[in-house]
C-alpha cells in the first residue's frame, strides 16, 4: 500500500520544518483572530470545521458516504444543551455528555449501516437520521420547533468565564485543536492506513486478513463522536439547540463543505467550512439566494475542480515537485 494510489490522498512527508512552520503560523493567526474578526462568527466556523473534519474522516479516508451526520451533530447539541440547562451540568461535562451520546448513537447506527455498501449505506444513515429528526420534533425535552433556548454559559472548568466571547473563543479553539489532533492521529496511524486500504479496494483488504467491518465501525463511531463534539460545542456557543441541527439539510451542508474544501485532505474540510459559513453569514441579506449560490458553487466544484480547493492546491504543488524532480534527474 502506498499513499500514491489515489490522487485524493494527501502526500505524506512526515514532519518537515516547513510544515511545522506553517502549522505555527496558522495557530498564531487563529489565536490573534478574535481581535480582528467577530468572535461568534469564528466560533461558528470552528464548530463547522470540526464537524466537516469528522465527516471527512469517514468519507475521505474510509470511503463511506454517510447522509445522516446531522443526527450526531444535532443529537449531541440537544444532549449538551439539556444537561447544561435543565440538569445544571458545567459546560465541559455537558459537552462530554453530548459527545458520548453521539458516539453511542454512532455505534447503533454504524452496526446497522456498515452491513451495506455505497448508496444503500447512505440511505440507511439517511433513514435513521430522519427517524431521529422526528424523534427530536416530538420529544418533550427538545422543545419541538422552539428548540432548547437560553442555555446558560457557566464557567468552564469552574474558572474560565465564558460569558465573554473572546474567552469562549479560546475554549472552542482548544476543543477544535484537540478534535483535529485526534483525526490527524487516526489518519496517520496503521488504523488510518487500513481505512485507506479499505477505501481503495475492500475485497483486497479482506483477503489480506483485515476484519473490515470492525475497522469501518470504529471509523464510524469516531466520526460520529467528533461530529457530536462539534455539535455540543455549537450549542454552548449559540446557547441553543434547535431542529436545524438535526435536519437533513445539515447532513447535506457538511457534505458540501467537505467536497468544496477537498475530500480526503486534512485541511480541506476546514477551508470548505470556512467558505460555506462565510457565505451564509455575509450573504444572509440576500435571503434565499444563498442557497442558489451554494448550489452553483457545488456544481462548479464537481465539474471543474473535483478535488476541492485544498485538493487542487496539493495536486498542483505535487505536479510541480514531480516536474522539478524530473528536470533534476535528467541532466
Amino acid at each position, binding site marked *: 500500500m502506498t499513499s500514491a494510489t489515489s490522487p485524493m490522498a494527501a502526500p505524506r512527508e512526515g514532519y518537515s520544518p516547513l510544515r511545522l512552520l506553517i502549522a505555527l503560523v496558522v495557530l498564531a493567526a487563529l489565536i490573534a483572530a478574535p481581535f480582528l474578526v*467577530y468572535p*461568534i462568527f469564528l466560533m461558528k466556523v470552528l464548530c463547522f470545521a470540526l464537524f466537516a473534519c469528522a465527516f471527512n474522516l469517514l468519507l475521505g479516508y474510509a470511503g463511506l458516504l454517510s447522509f445522516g451526520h446531522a443526527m450526531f451533530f444535532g443529537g449531541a447539541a440537544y444532549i449538551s444543551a439539556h444537561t447544561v440547562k435543565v440538569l445544571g451540568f458545567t459546560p465541559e461535562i455537558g459537552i462530554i455528555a453530548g459527545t458520548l451520546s453521539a458516539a453511542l448513537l454512532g455505534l447503533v447506527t454504524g452496526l446497522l449501516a456498515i452491513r451495506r455498501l455505497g448508496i444503500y449505506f447512505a440511505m440507511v444513515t439517511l433513514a435513521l437520521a430522519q427517524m431521529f429528526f422526528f424523534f427530536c420534533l416530538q420529544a418533550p425535552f427538545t422543545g419541538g*420547533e422552539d428548540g432548547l*433556548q437560553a442555555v446558560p454559559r457557566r464557567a468552564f472548568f469552574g474558572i474560565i468565564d465564558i460569558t465573554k466571547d473572546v474567552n469562549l473563543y479560546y475554549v472552542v479553539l482548544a476543543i477544535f485543536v484537540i478534535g483535529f489532533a485526534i483525526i490527524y492521529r487516526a489518519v496517520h496511524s496503521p488504523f488510518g492506513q487500513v481505512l485507506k486500504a479499505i477505501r481503495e479496494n475492500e475485497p483486497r483488504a479482506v483477503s489480506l486478513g483485515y476484519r473490515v467491518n470492525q475497522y469501518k465501525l470504529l471509523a464510524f463511531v469516531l466520526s460520529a463522536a467528533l461530529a457530536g463534539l462539534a455539535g455540543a460545542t455549537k450549542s454552548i456557543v449559540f446557547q*441553543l439547540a*434547535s431542529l*436545524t441541527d438535526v435536519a437533513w439539510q445539515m447532513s447535506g451542508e457538511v457534505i458540501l463543505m467537505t467536497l468544496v474544501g477537498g475530500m480526503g485532505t486534512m485541511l480541506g474540510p476546514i477551508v470548505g467550512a470556512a467558505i460555506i459559513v462565510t457565505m451564509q453569514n455575509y450573504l444572509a441579506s440576500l*435571503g*434565499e439566494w444563498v442557497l442558489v449560490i451554494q448550489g452553483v458553487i457545488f456544481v462548479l466544484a464537481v465539474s471543474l475542480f473535483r478535488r476541492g480547493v485544498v485538493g487542487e492546491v496539493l495536486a498542483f504543488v505535487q505536479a510541480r515537485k514531480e516536474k522539478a524532480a524530473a528536470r533534476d534527474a535528467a541532466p
Partner: protein
Amino acid sequence: MRFAAMLMAAASVFAVTAANAQSPVKVKIGVLNDMSSLYSDLSGPGSVWAAKKAVEDFGAAAKGLQVEVIAADHQNKADVGTSVARQWYDVEGVDMIVDTPNSGVALAVNTVTREKNKVFINSGAATSDLTGKACSPNTVHWTYDTWALANGTGKAVTKNGGDTWFFLTADYAFGHALERDTSEVVKANGGKVVGTVRVPLNTSDFSSFLLQAQGSKAKIIGLANAGGDTINSIKQASEYGITSSGQKLAGLLIFLTDINSIGLKTAQGLNLTSAWYWDMTDANRAFAKEFSAANGGKYPTMVQAGVYSGVTHYLKSVAALKSAKDGAAVVAEMKKMPTDDKLFGKGEVRADGRQIHPMFLFEVKKPSESKGPYDFYTLKATIPANEAFRPIGEGDCPLVKKT
C-alpha cells in the same frame, strides 16, 4: 455581564460626548422578520416600510435623532435569529430590534436583547410568554398575543353555541400557547375540548389532520396556526367539505393578507380577532393608501401597523432621554410615557411590557358585500382595552410585584 457593563460604560461615554457636541443622537433600528417564507406577507418588507415611515413621520432629524433602519431575514430559525441579533448588537451597533414574527425566534431574541441591554419591540409574534414567564425589562410586546386572540375569538364563538372544540395546532411554541390559552377560555365559558392534533410548521398537506378533526365530531375546529399554515388548512377544509357539512372553523390568528390569499368565497363568515384594521378611521385609511402605493397594492396588516406604532413610541422615548444606548432605560421611559399615535390611538405600556389597546372582533364579509380591494371585515364587537389583554397579575411575570 461584564461585557454588558463595558457596553453601558461605552454608551454613557458616547452619550456625554453626544450631548456636548450637540450632534444628533444616532439610533439604529433592525427589522428582523421573515422575508421569504410563510410570514413574509404579513410582516416582511411591509414591516420595513412601516418602520421607515414611522421614522419619517416622527420627524426624527428635526428632533435631533439620526435614525437608520436595517433589515434581515431570520428564516424562521431560532439559531439564525439569535446569530443575526447578536451580530447586530455586537458589531453593527443596532439599538433596537422590531417585529420578529415566529414565537420561537422571538423568545430567542428576547433572551439576547436582555443580555445585551438593548430594546426589543415585538409586533409579529404571538406568544403571551413574552410578557409572562419570559418577560424582560428590555422587551415591549406591541400588537397582540395568544391570550388576546383566544379571549376574543374563543369567548365569542363558545358563547354563540360552539361549545365543543377540536384543535389543529402548529407544533411550536406559538401553536402550543394559542391552544392552551384558547382551551382555558373555552372551558371557562362552558365549552369542551374533545381533541387536538399537532401539525409540523409549514405543512402543505393537512388531509390526515383534517380527517381527524372531522372524525372528532366537534362543532368547532380551532386553527391554532398562522400565516401560510392557516391559509392551507382553511382551503383544504373547504375542499374536504368540512365547512359545508356543518363543522365550523375558528381561525385564532388570521391576518388580512391571509383572507386575501384564501379568497372571500372560502373565508366568508369566519370570525376573527384583530388589533387593527385599515378601514376604521381616516388616519388608518390614509396610512393604508400610502402603504399600498409603496408595496405593490398590498394593504397593511395589524403587524405592520404595530411596527409603525411601536417604532413611533420608541423614538419618542429616545428623544426624551436623548440616548438610545441603555435599553432598559429606554423601555422604562416607554412604560412611563402614555402611548399615542395615529394608528393605535391612546394607550399605555404596562409594567410587564404589554402594550394595551382595544381589540376588535370581525366577521369576514361575503363576496357580494365587499366593495373594493381588501374590503374584507365587518366589525362585530370592540373589546375594550382593559378587557382585551391578560390581567397583569396572571402572567407570572417576575417584573410584576405581587400584592
